[in-house]
């Protein structure tokens, strides 16, 4: 179960997507997410799909990884699409029983929603797949740095994010170890009702929390030993520099936006 979590994971590589400036990737990804929601018909949506697929192919991330990431949100996709099918009652009725009515409009809306969510996940997970978490938090820090003027502790927030990301694999490992330790003591984690299983998780989470606090204490000590005093006055190993390719990337995104707007006007609202 825990090994399936790939959202937020980084896969080192040397593709053009990997080499793009993280700040630009961050901004363009946010722009693209908004653009996906601007789409009003299938033609515009198809354009975002083309964009997402092209980006995935260019990133040279294994398709297996991409599908695994999508599988973990399968439930959300199913849930929203079922909701769409029942909620939307436009178009011809295909099936009716008691209060349940399935219409062509509902099916189209569901398909639209599924494509939209999948594209959304593709584009946003590509950001974390191709950018090391430290670079990403670095980029977030730099993109948000104007907020420093308003006394927002941007550096500290970025540091907290880095540490959280750093400890995900460590804690996942630890959950596995504690689970095995409790199983060895006769804990039954896999059978019983939902409530029973939830209760069985308590002896997993209590030691996990206790250990996390101990870890946090030790980490704070280690950081102090390495002269950490405040996050706002640090220098960086990596200097971020914008290249021509980064502006090219922005250009592609602007073209996408233009295309979407044009198709929206051309074909009108379908959904």
């Amino acid at each position, binding site marked *: 179960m825990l090994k399936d979590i790939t959202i937020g994971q980084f896969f080192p590589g040397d593709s053009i997507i990997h080499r793009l400036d993280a700040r630009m990737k961050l901004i363009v990804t946010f722009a693209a997410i908004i653009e996906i929601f601007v789409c009003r018909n299938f033609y515009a949506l198809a354009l975002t799909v083309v964009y997402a697929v092209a980006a995935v192919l260019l990133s040279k991330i294994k398709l297996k990884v991409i599908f695994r990431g999508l599988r973990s949100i399968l439930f959300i996709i199913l849930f929203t699409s079922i909701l769409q099918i029942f909620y939307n009652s436009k178009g011809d009725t295909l099936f009716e029983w008691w209060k349940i009515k399935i219409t062509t409009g509902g099916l189209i809306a569901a398909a639209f929603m599924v494509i939209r969510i999948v594209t959304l996940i593709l584009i946003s997970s590509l950001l974390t797949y191709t950018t*090391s978490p430290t670079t990403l938090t670095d980029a977030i820090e730099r993109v948000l740095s104007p907020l420093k003027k308003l006394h927002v502790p941007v550096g500290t927030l970025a540091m907290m994010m880095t540490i959280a990301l750093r400890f995900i694999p460590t804690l996942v490992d630890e959950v596995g170890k504690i689970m095995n330790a409790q199983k060895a003591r006769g804990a039954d984690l896999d059978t019983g009702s939902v409530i029973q299983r939830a209760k069985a998780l308590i002896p997993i989470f209590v030691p996990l929390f206790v250990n996390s606090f101990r870890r946090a204490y030790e980490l704070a000590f280690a950081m102090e030993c390495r*002269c950490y005093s405040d996050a706002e006055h640090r220098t960086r190993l990596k200097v971020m520099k914008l290249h021509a390719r980064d502006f090219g990337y922005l250009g592609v995104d602007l073209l996408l936006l233009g295309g979407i707007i044009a198709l929206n006007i051309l074909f009108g609202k379908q959904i």
Partner: protein
Amino acid sequence: MTDTIWLRFDHVHYSYPAEEGQKAVPAVTDVSFDVHEGEFVCVLGHNGSGKSTIAKLSNAILIPDQGVVTAMEIDTSQESRELEIRQNVGVVMQNPDNQIVATIVEEDVAFGPENLALPQKEIRRRVDDALKAVDLYDMRFHEPHKLSGGQKQRVAIAGILAMEPHVIVLDEPTSMLDPKGRTEVLDYIHKLNRERGIAVVLITHYMDEAVQADTVYVMEKGRIVLRGTPEAVFAREDVLDSTGLELPECAALASALRQAGVPMPKSVLSPEALAEALAQVLPREVTP
């Protein structure tokens, strides 16, 4: 060895703040010792002997209740010079998992120099240099959680090394490692001491790690009970017995032989010394 003293404990006392309704237990009582330029010091002690407190006192994480700790001639109670002290006296801890901050090896090593607000070029130079010193340069883009325990501890050492300290204090750096990782880490610690002249304070409960030290201090209940060269310290079995520490294998064997009536010299610490001592007493010719 020259006379320059890089780290000095002068009659240091320290007690952790007492919890409500409890009496403060002194962790360190009247501890004095000097670490000279380029010296390899080993502090031996069992759990609760106060040896980890020594590490925290050495770089101003804790300030002594009484007495003075001086790091590179700076009194550690001067709060304004805290960073200077910590840059000069680096501390490596027991659990490598809890002292690695970043998700990429080289970015973690850069953490210290980044905090010192060094220029980017200087950070790059120090990171590369530190990684080469522990032979992890080829793994600089790896994720720390995928490395072995020994490699993780080497990353932690490189992280300290990148601050270019004069003294490195290691608090039980090998206790969470497997035997292979242990030798690996110890080899690098000795190499740094030998080749870079970095003074090392190795805090441990493994007596065999103390064999190659210049000076050994044995701690019990917060006090230093023995001090001297490894040979001199290991010869004092009377005191060592009460500390609950175990003799290095060769010394333990020599001691057992002595008790069984085989004449053995007082300080047998290495396999070579043991072989020589045995050669003296064994019959020269072995009949098949």
